[in-house]
């Protein structure tokens, strides 16, 4: 029972971090109808940025975090303008290939610049806190708190501000929004900026909880995508719910089915993805008929 509770808590913690990356996918998909596979790599870049700013340049951790989010936001907008914008009218598969190619380029570039060894944030190793039956480290508490903060801020932005309304309008029906005078291009850039900033936050938090490595980008990409499909592609609430479920599934699955061998964690993401595509491709909050041919 104790093990189960610990696994569930670990799952929720992991899920809340993936959720930030998954939200980026959901937002881009809701407007442009394609899955931005480069998002995970942006998350990885964000993690490295925070790390470098913090350890090599001696900047305060919190400031480094914020700076990395800003730089990643900029990176996301540039990626859109350079690689995705020319393909707005192209079949979705072309953009998908481009996004994957970008993730390879980013992953390989970071590998060349930073090397392949894992890096850790220089946090002191502190004993875990006890919360009832489970253990949770102070870093994990910070991670959950930060994730919650960002999710709530985003919710506030989207529901209570004018810009949020504009984003929702464009996401709901881009053509109609454009006819009504909204500058779709600018909104798309804003969405990429927000999505990339959140991805950077996700990457940094994940890096703080475990390690940073160039390979983590692709892992985040796959888990984020699976979470979004599970929750319903395009729905932010779905992305969050999907991520939490994914986090729990991967922890439970690895423990009970793979003897705790962590190498299989990502495989569970794929298995979840396949199951959802087979059973209900539209996901939990998705609309029917989006994923099948007929």
């Amino acid at each position, binding site marked *: 029972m104790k093990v189960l509770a610990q696994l569930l808590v670990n799952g929720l913690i992991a899920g809340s971090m993936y959720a930030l990356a998954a939200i980026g996918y959901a937002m881009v998909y809701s407007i442009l109808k394609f899955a931005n596979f480069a998002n995970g790599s942006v998350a990885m870049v964000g993690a490295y940025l925070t790390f470098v700013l913090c350890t090599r340049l001696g900047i305060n951790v919190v400031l480094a975090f914020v700076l990395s989010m800003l730089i990643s936001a900029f990176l996301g907008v540039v990626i859109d303008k350079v690689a995705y914008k020319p393909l707005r009218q192209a079949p979705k598969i072309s953009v998908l290939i481009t996004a994957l*190619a970008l993730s*390879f380029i980013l992953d390989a570039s970071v*590998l060349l610049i930073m090397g392949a060894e894992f890096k850790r944030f220089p946090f002191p190793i502190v004993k875990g806190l006890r919360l009832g039956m489970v253990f949770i480290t102070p870093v994990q508490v910070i991670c959950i708190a930060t994730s919650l903060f960002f999710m709530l801020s985003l919710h506030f932005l989207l529901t209570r501000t004018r810009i949020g309304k504009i984003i929702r309008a464009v996401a709901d029906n881009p053509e109609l929004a454009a006819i009504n005078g909204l500058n779709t291009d600018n909104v798309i850039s804003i969405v990429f900026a927000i999505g990339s900033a959140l991805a950077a936050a996700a990457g940094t938090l994940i890096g703080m909880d475990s390690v940073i490595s160039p390979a983590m980008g692709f892992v985040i990409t796959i888990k984020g995508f699976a979470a979004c499909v599970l929750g319903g592609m395009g729905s932010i609430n779905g992305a969050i719910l999907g991520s939490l479920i994914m986090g729990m599934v991967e922890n439970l699955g690895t423990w009970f089915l793979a003897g705790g061998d962590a*190498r299989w964690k990502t495989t569970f993401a794929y298995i979840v993805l*396949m199951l959802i*595509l087979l059973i209900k491709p539209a996901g939990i909050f998705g609309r029917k008929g989006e*994923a*099948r041919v007929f």
Partner: protein
Amino acid sequence: MLPTGVIIHVLIVICIYAILAIGLNIIMGCAALFTIANAALFGVGAYTSALLALAGFPFWLDILAATFMAGLISFLIGLPTLNLVGDYLAVATMGLGEILVAISRNWDSVTRGPMGLPGIPPASLFGFTFDSPPKFLGLSAALLLVIYLVAERLIYSPFGRVLKGIREDEIAVQALGKNAFWFKMWAFVVGGAFMGTAGSLYAHYLGFIDPSSFTLWIAFFIWSIIILGGLGNNLGAIAASFVFVAMRESLRFLGLPANVTAAIQQIFFGIILIVMMIFAPRGLIPERKYITRYKGDAEDRQSD
């Protein structure tokens, strides 16, 4: 000038990738099924072949088994995924492909994981052993020719025409009474089987295989080959294999450590792929168009 050994090596790799590209052309070029499982099927063929060869079975058996196994796994992959739309199909095949790679990496007892399978015996047919590169080049080129001819017959046949119809408008093809799903499945299985054949060749050439040769990145590399050569164009695929494999191998000559070279390859080909997507998504060389001659043509001209 390059030493002959190097040239022969590059030519052999070109043949192997050309076979992979032709297999993928049947699936992606002709039927527009965006599969990212191609490298994994390459791996299925390689591992099947390697394991059988290491257990003492003869080459002709293990290459047939590799082809069959890759076809079978393609069938299993296709069952749940071929009803999905374009990008979902791509992601589903990517997922299944990655599961296969994860199995090869983690199923230590059979595949020895990242350490790979060394000491694969060279191929031998009817008592003739292909143990030197020039002989192996002969074998590879012969297989490439056979597969090319088979693929061409397939693509420019009624079967191929239905596949192209599915590519253009699947629902219309179904309205005409063709069971689109099974046509797609056949394309998937045959293409996959060829990739398995290439895998077997690869295993017997190198004598050693490990999971890193069958990653997602390789899947992408094969995609970029058929995009360069023109989707559906097999001659283009062979030419493009030549160009890209030569480029890739030449990057190795910079003498940099292995993972640096791999990273540079990824960046280089990633950029090429993006540029191709933006400027020439259907490929640089279009397919051969059908020219239907009617019986009356020559007579009409004569009467002018």
